[in-house]
């Protein structure tokens, strides 16, 4: 079966969603004429016209704020924030408006917006174009946060995000845009909040999401050579996250390692570790290990960035630690 690149998978999902629902519009900087910084919106202006594919000025606060108002008035806006670092400029619209409208107005409305945004390093883009800020958003009641690791998940989870009546932040790791894969390789996510067991194993559970899943899989192969069998879980969505799958796995392996590219402190891994420690402490045979970026801004220089992003060797070391 033909393989599709990660970015193209989202592009295909966008096309199919827009063909099926005329209320979907796209908003973002350089998404129309320029086809997006990472070309995810390639061809969409031509296909759907300027009434549905809107090139916006560089005004993140107004773009996301407008998406909230448009959603309250019958449209389904999909917004592209060019780099996740720029989402800081739209935080009022996300944190005070989109996330709260349904609750705060007594259930009178939902805010069906999807905000697509690329995170992550690997491009030497420096401290303001490389951050993984998803934990901030997962901390806000009312938002959902999705972060796929494969073209197939990106395709299906994007469709699920558009179908979802609540505001969804759809996080795309920049390093994945070049990754190819089949779009329907078996188990397909139908909705948000279901993890995928990427690799079955008996000795340790390694939980991850986004591009870090591939790092973890590389580590699992190395560990296999040492006779260590790692079960790898791809969360796919961080808010909500699939507690059932994680707890079920920990109950079998009795060891837990959590891996993400985002800064380790106060991250997604902290939440998962805390929940497992609270509710499944008796299942654990060893302390939980978290692997994440160090507590520093993402550095620019190639040699610095290479040391910054958690590598397979760090995952291998983390797993060994839980087994020692």
């Amino acid at each position, binding site marked *: 079966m033909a393989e599709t690149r990660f970015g193209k998978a989202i592009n295909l999902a966008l096309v199919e969603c827009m063909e099926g629902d005329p209320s979907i519009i796209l908003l973002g900087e350089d998404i129309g004429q320029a086809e997006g910084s990472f070309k995810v919106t390639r061809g969409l202006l031509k296909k759907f016209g300027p009434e549905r594919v809107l090139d916006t000025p560089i005004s993140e606060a107004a773009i996301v704020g407008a998406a909230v108002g448009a959603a309250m008035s019958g449209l389904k806006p999909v917004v592209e924030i060019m780099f996740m670092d720029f989402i800081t400029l739209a935080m*009022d619209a996300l944190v005070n*408006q989109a996330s709260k*409208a*349904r609750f705060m107005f*007594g259930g009178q409305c939902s805010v069906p917006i999807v905000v697509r945004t690329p995170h992550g390093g690997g491009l030497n883009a420096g401290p303001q174009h490389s951050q993984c800020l998803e934990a901030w958003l997962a901390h806000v009641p009312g938002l959902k946060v999705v972060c796929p690791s494969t073209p197939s998940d990106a395709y299906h989870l994007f469709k699920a995000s558009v179908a979802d009546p609540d505001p969804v932040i759809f996080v795309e790791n920049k390093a994945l845009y070049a990754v190819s894969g089949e779009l329907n390789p078996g188990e397909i996510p139908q909705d948000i*909040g279901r993890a995928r067991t990427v690799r079955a194993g008996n000795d340790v559970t390694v939980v991850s999401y986004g591009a870090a899943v591939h790092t973890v899989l590389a580590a699992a192969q190395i560990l296999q050579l040492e006779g260590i069998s790692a079960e790898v879980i791809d969360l796919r969505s961080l808010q*909500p996250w699939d507690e059932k799958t994680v707890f079920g796995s920990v109950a079998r392996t009795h060891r837990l390692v959590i891996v993400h590219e985002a800064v380790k402190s106060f991250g997604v891994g902290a939440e998962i570790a805390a929940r497992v420690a609270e509710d499944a402490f008796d299942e654990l045979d060893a302390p939980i290990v978290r692997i994440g970026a160090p507590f520093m801004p993402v550095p620019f220089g190639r040699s610095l960035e290479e040391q910054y992003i958690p590598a397979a060797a760090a995952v291998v070391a983390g797993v060994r630690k839980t087994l020692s």
Partner: protein
Amino acid sequence: MKDRLLSMIETMVLIRSTENRLAKLFADGEIPGFIHLSIGQEAVAAGVMSALGPQDTITTTHRGHGHVIAKGIGLDRFFREVMGRANGICAGRGGSMHVADMSVGVLGANGIVGAGIPIALGSALAHKVRKTSAIAATFFGDGAQAEGVLYESLNLSSLWGLPLLFVCENNGWSEFSPTSRQFAGTIEGLARAFGLNYTRVDGNDVEAVALETENAAMSLRAGGNPHVLECMTVRVRGHFEGDPQKYRDPGELAGLEASDPIARAAEKVRALPKGDSDLRAIEERVASRIEDAVRNAREDRLPDFRQAIGDVYTTRREG
């Protein structure tokens, strides 16, 4: 003519009496949190809304009781909300600063200064994309002139030719500070800079506000440029109820009766046949509606916590 004026007076009296009643309820501890009153500014709400229809949408501010009442929210559910009751329009979860009624096009009051502006921008975009004749209006105070999202929204509305009416209620105060110390420009300058139409109006003259809004709305419905309507008005009460306003010159508040929008409109009606009895009838109707609403709110139950937590998401799959 007289009917229209009477109807706007009735709206203003309803807003004034509601807020006076809220002040009393707040002082008596029957309203939790804090409230911001628009007493003295009622002509903006009544005048603008007299030119809008049910299909039109608005966003408003922390000082938004007048706008939501004038747009047609049911008084009963309004009082229940502000008093934190289960059958409030927002189920007791929003309160005074977050009153919304989607059924009459109120997309929400807002606790964040300026935050309603881009929401109205998006609503105007939806009206245009969906090819309806509706327009959106966003109310904001002169304090919001210092918020960056206003400039982004002025720019976008102009670029996209959106049916959006920016209503600046200029009462001279940014919370506890005179706006003259907070904002170096003018909203007229901003409007002109971005190519929007602009009108300044005596915001305490309800007929003038209605007329200018009608003109602006007609132009917007015909595809004209977005419009900024600056309404010059007076904030009689403090930033919030209970604010002693020590930062204000006592002389500033003296002699306000002469500019009171209700008194000015009533004066015109008194000169007409049966004017006095019409005004008395309005007072009586409004008083009775408010007392009914307060009684119903007091009798309403308190909101259920589990129902509240269940409404954070429309749908949610737990792991």
